[in-house]
C-alpha cells in the first residue's frame, strides 16, 4: 500500500516567547471551563479563541467580565499563562487547545496537566511546561506583578534561569513546526511489517 504524505499542515515555529504572562492560580481548570461544549459543536475552529474561558471571561449578559485576568488591560493579548495544578483536566476535546491558541496563547506553565490536553498541545504548536509547584508559585508572583517573561525553547529555560524538561522529539516538533502525522506517514513500511507479523501471531485481531 502506498500513501502520499498529503498536504502538510502548517504550524507556527516556536522559538523564543517574550512578554507578559497572565496568572491563573485556579486549580483543576477543566476543559469545559476552557471551552464550552456548545462551542465544540457549532463554532468554526478559527473562531474558538473568542470563546476561550467563556464562563469566566463574560458576564451572564454577554459583556466582558472586567475581573477576569485576560480582560485586564495589562494582560490582554498575553501569550503565556501561569496556572494552578492539573490544568486541562477532563475531556479529550482538542478544541480546548484550539481556543487557547486562537486567543494567542502559545505557552502554559503549571505544576501538572490533564494528560490528554497535554498531548494535544504539542499537536498545535502550544508549549505546556511542567515545573515544581514552588517554582510555579514564584512565577505566579512575577506574573501577578506583570513582570516580563521569556520562554526559550531551544535552551529549555523560563526567564533565563529556570530549566524545564521536554522530550527531544516534541521539542523538535515545536521548534520546526513539524506535524507528527507527516513523520509517521514516512514510517509506513514499518507499520505494514508490524501488521504482517502480527496477523500471523494474533489473527483474530484482523477478522472483525
Amino acid at each position, binding site marked *: *500500500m502506498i*500513501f*502520499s504524505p*498529503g*498536504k502538510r*499542515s502548517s504550524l507556527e515555529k516556536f522559538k523564543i516567547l517574550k512578554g507578559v504572562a497572565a496568572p491563573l492560580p485556579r486549580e*483543576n481548570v*477543566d476543559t*469545559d*471551563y476552557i471551552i*464550552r*461544549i*456548545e462551542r*465544540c*459543536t*457549532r463554532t468554526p475552529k478559527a473562531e474558538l479563541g473568542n470563546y476561550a474561558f467563556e*464562563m469566566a471571561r463574560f458576564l451572564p449578559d454577554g459583556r466582558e467580565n472586567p475581573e477576569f485576568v485576560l480582560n485586564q488591560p495589562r494582560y490582554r493579548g498575553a501569550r503565556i499563562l501561569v496556572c494552578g*495544578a*492539573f490544568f486541562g*483536566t*477532563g*475531556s*479529550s*476535546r*482538542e478544541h480546548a*487547545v484550539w481556543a487557547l491558541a486562537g486567543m494567542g496563547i502559545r505557552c502554559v506553565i503549571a505544576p*501538572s496537566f*490533564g*494528560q*490528554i490536553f497535554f*498531548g*494535544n498541545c504539542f*499537536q*498545535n504548536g502550544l508549549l505546556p511546561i511542567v515545573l515544581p509547584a514552588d517554582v510555579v508559585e514564584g512565577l505566579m508572583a512575577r506574573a501577578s506583578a506583570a513582570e516580563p517573561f521569556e520562554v526559550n525553547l531551544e535552551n529549555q529555560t523560563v526567564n533565563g534561569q529556570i530549566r524545564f524538561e521536554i*522530550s*527531544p*522529539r516534541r521539542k523538535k516538533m515545536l521548534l520546526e513546526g513539524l506535524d*507528527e*502525522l507527516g513523520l*509517521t*506517514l514516512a*514510517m*509506513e513500511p*514499518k*507499520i505494514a511489517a*508490524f*501488521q504482517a507479523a*502480527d496477523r500471523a501471531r*494474533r*489473527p*483474530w*485481531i*484482523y*477478522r*472483525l
Partner: protein
Amino acid sequence: MSGRTLFDKVWDEHVVDELGDGMQLMHVDRHLMNELSGHRGQEVIAERGLKTRNPDLTIGTLDHVVSTAPGSRGGGAAWADRIIQVFREESAKAGFPVYDFGDDGQGIVHVIGPELGFTLPGVLLVCGDSHTCTHGALGALAWGIGTSELVHVLATQTVAQQKPKTMRARFDGRPQRGVYAKDLILALIGKIGTAGGMGYAVEYAGEAIRGLDMEGRMTVCNLSIELGAKVGMVAPDEKTFAYVKGRRHAPKGELWDQALAHWKTLPTDPDAAFDLEHALDCSSLAPQVTWGTSPEDVAGVDGTVPDAKPEALAYMGLSPGQRIAGTKIDRVFIGSCTNSRLPDLRAAAEVVRGREVAKHVKAWAVPGSLRVKREAEAEGLHEVFLAAGFEWREAGCSMCVAANGDYVEPLARCVSTSNRNFAGRQGPQARTHLASPATAAASAIAGEIVDPRSFL
C-alpha cells in the same frame, strides 16, 4: 526475571517502533468512532487528501449529538443532523460501518464497543473521547485521543505515546448492599484526588473488583480519567470470557480458541511490581455523592459538606457543615457511559418499583444503547420507570455532555449517574451531584439526596 503486569504485556505487544526518548509508535487494533469527534477528524483527512488506512479495524456509531427524546431518530438540532450526515458519508466512503438509528449497535461508544464484541481482552483500542478508558474493564489497553491523534490513527492505524508508569488500586473486602461500582471508584478518587493517577496506567484489583459483573468493572474503569489516568484496566477472567463469547464481532471457532489461549496469559504475574500501590477497604464504605465541582469533591451520603473549596460550594449553593442527605433536588439523570447498562437500570428500577418520583423532580432514565433499551424493555423495566413518573428515553450521551438538547437548567440541582460535575458541564450554571444509579433513583423518589440503603 521479575514478572510483568497486565498493562506491560499488552503494551509491549503493540510497539511498532521506538521514536526516541521514551516515545513509542503503537499499533491500534480497534478504532471506535463517534459522530462528534469523528466527523471533525474525517474533515481533516479529506482536506489533506489522506485515506482511512484500516477501515477493517474501525467502526462508528452515533451518541454525542443525538436527541434522546422519546421516539426521536436524529440529531438534537439542525447542526447536529449535519454532523451526523458528514459522519455517515465519510464513513461510507472510507468503508467502515456506522451503527445507526434502529440498529442494536447504536448508542454510547463505550457501551456498544463491549456489547458488540468489538472490544476484546488485550487489544489496543482508541476513541476520540476521554472515557475510552472504560474498555479496560475487559483487559483492553484503551484511552481517549484528541482530534489530531484521531486523524493520525485514521491515516496510519498507529498512535505515538509515552509509556506511562503503573499503579495498582486494590479494593479489599465486600461492599455492603446498596454500595455499587460507582461508589467504589468515587471513593478512590476522593481518597487520592483527580491527579492521583496522573502519568499512570491503573490496574484495578482485589476482592471487590473480582466480585463485580463486567458492567460494574466498566463503571470503575470509566472513571479512570477522573483519577487523572488515561488508562484503567481489570485483568480478564472467566467472567470476561463468558461476556465476550458469541458477540457480533468476537472471534469465532478456531480463532476463539486461539484468542482465549492468548488472553489467559495476560493477567499480571504474581511477582510483578507496580510503581505505585493504593488500597481501599470497601467493607465499611457508604454510598458516595459529590458535593463540589470536581469528582474528588466526594463524601459518603451520610456525611456533611466540608469547609473547603469556597468557590465550588458557592457554585453548588451549599454551605459547610450541611448534611448531604436531605439536600433538595430538581433533576435526576440515570444514564451516560458510566451507568447506562442493563445492571445499572435494574439497580435503579429495583429502588423505583412501586414508588413515585417526587412532584417537583424531573427524572430521566436514558439507556446507553438500543440493545440495552430493548433488553430492559423485554424485562419490563421501562414500565417500572414510566409508572413511577420517569421519562424513558432513546439511547445516547444525553445530558452528561449537554451537546444534544438535553441539559440541566441554570441553578437546577441534578443527581446524575454520569462522570463529571464540572461547573457548567450539564448546562450553564447547572449543579451536578454524581452518584450511583440506586442513589439517583432513590433521590428522585425522595425529592432530595437520600441514602439508597433505606429503599432496598
